[in-house]
Every structure is written in C-alpha cells, then in structure tokens.
C-alpha cells in the first residue's frame, strides 16, 4: 500500500508540473480556474455519489484515503486539463473525440486497478462500470462547458486581453 501511495504521490507531482506546458494554449489564470473546477468536480462526484452506496468505497485506512485524494484531486483533473488542451488545438476531430473517450475509459480502468490493489473496496454483489462511465462523461462535459464560457468573462474584465494571451 505504501508503494502505491508513493507512486501516486510521484505521479501527482509530475502531473502538477506538467500543467506548465498548458501555457501554449491556456492563460495561467485559466489553468488555475479550470484545474480547481475539474478537481472539485472529480472529487465531489466520485465521493458524493459513491459514499451513500455500497458499490465502491475507499478502504478505511490512512494510505488508501490519501491515495484516493491524490487520484481524484490531482491526477484525474490534470488529465482532464490535457484533454481540454487537445480540444483547443487544431488537431483532427477524431483525435479530440479519442482523447475524451480515453479519459473516460482510463478513469474507469484506474478505478478497477485501485479495486484490485485494495485501495477501493466494493461491498455490492457486482460493480457496474457503466455508472462510472456516465459520471465521467458528465464531469468531462462540465469542464468543457466551463472552458468555453470562461474566456469571454475574463476578457470582459480585462484579465485576458486578446487571443495573444493563449
């Protein structure tokens, strides 16, 4: 369990450092807001909707608790940021859609891994990943929506002056 925790800690640190590279297409202020938003949504959705149900829970020990915090608080949101980075690029539509699917499917895959290594536990008869797919799509949609709505607000208040800020 300690190995998993330290792996996730290293991954979290590296992923936070990778946010710097997003400056090619995002203003630093946008990166801050979008990261906070996606982190809040990832944590809240997966925690709020899993805690009343028996389907998926965090093992009630310190290292699994903090491992899941790192996973949903930092790693998942940074990966969403990279999906948003691809969506803002001029790459083909197929690549953009692939990146969205990859995040959704990757999230469920990582949950399954955490279930197998004992960070998460399921007390129900079976774990239906379809619910997690739907939740992940809702989270991703909300982040994309905010990414689109944010620049006009920031431009109106002269935080973003023009497209040269990107």
């Amino acid at each position, binding site marked *: 369990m300690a190995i998993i925790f330290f792996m996730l800690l290293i991954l979290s640190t590296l992923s936070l450092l990778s946010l710097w590279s997003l400056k090619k297409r995002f203003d630093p*202020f946008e990166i*801050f*807001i979008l990261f*906070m*938003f996606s*982190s*809040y949504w990832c*944590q*809240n959705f997966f*925690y*709020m*909707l899993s*805690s*009343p*149900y028996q389907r998926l829970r*965090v093992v*009630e*020990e*310190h290292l699994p*608790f903090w491992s899941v*915090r790192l996973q949903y*608080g930092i790693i998942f949101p940074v990966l969403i940021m990279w999906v948003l980075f691809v969506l803002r690029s001029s790459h083909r539509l197929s690549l953009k859609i692939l990146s969205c699917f990859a995040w959704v499917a990757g999230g469920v895959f990582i949950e399954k891994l955490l279930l197998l290594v004992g960070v998460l536990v399921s007390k129900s008869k079976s774990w239906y990943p379809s619910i997690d797919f739907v939740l992940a799509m809702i989270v991703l949609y909300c982040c994309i929506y905010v990414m689109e709505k*944010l620049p006009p*607000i*920031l431009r*109106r*208040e*002269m*935080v973003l002056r023009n497209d040269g800020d990107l």
Partner: protein
Amino acid sequence: MMEIYEKAIKPLLPKHFDENEWYIIAISLIVGVAVYYITVKNRKLTWSEIICISLFDLQLTTIGDYFLAMPPYDFYDTIDNGSGEIMDIFLQNLVYPGTLLFFMHVYKSKKPQKWFFIILCTSILGLLELISVSIFHLFTYKTWSIYYSVLFYCFVMIVNVLFYEKLTTYLKKRNGGDSPPAR
C-alpha cells in the same frame, strides 16, 4: 420503480426528515438569497474574483469535510448518516462556500482591518456552529469539539483573506495597475 427507489434514491435521502433538515433548507435559502444579492443586486466583487473565491472555498470544503468527517479520521458525522446524503449537497456546495463568499464581499466593500475581520468572521462561524449543533443537531461530534471548529474557521478565514489579497494583486497587475471593473 421500487427497486430504483430502494437502490438509487433511498440511500441519498435523510433517515428522518426532522429539525436538522428544515434547518439546512432554511440556511440554504438565506445563503442563496445572500449570494444572489452580492452577485446580482449589489455586486462589488468582479466575476473573476467571485469565480476564484467560490472555487477556492469549494475546494477547502471538499478537502476539509471529506478529511474530517470520513473514515479513517471520522471526527464527526453530519446530519443523520455517516455517509453522504442529499442535504450534504446543499451544505457543501452552497452554504459553506456561499457564506465565505459573502464575507469576502463584505471585506472588499467595507475594507475592515484584517485581524478584526478574521476574528469577527471566526466568531460568527463558531456561533452558527454552536447553534447548529446544540439546537438543530446538525453535527454529531465523535472526537471533535467546538473549540477545534473555531480553530479551523480561524484558519479558513486567514487563508481566504490571504488568497483574496494575492488574487487582487495579481488581477491588478494583469490590468496594468488598475482595479478591474465590477461591472
């Protein structure tokens, strides 16, 4: 339909709809009206500030409540269940961050002395928690105490004031030294 209700909806509902649920509805309405007032009717904070402060406080709430109220720490329970229920959504996503946003609106508009403001807000939050616990049984303390809550609120207010000061300095620099307009 009954199966959907039993498996999907019932775990989210309160065990008993009593005084703590009515209290949450009442304070949610009050905070909702206060947030409407400071964002629509009498907005002093810019939208950039509102968005940043709200997200910052939502993060604090998420981290704080899930750290303090969930196993393995589990210092207290909120409302009826030890796990999340629908009333937690109002508390964590509206009441806590909305109250802090209102305080920061007052901080910007009245410009009080920092430490006086922090102590005043900490006292208000402590008093509200005392009322919530003793009269409406909103929280069930396990190894927690009201004194820890006061310390925690003091920390939250200090962090909010520091964050706001840093944010306004940063936004002023972005605007070339001028305060952004609160249109």
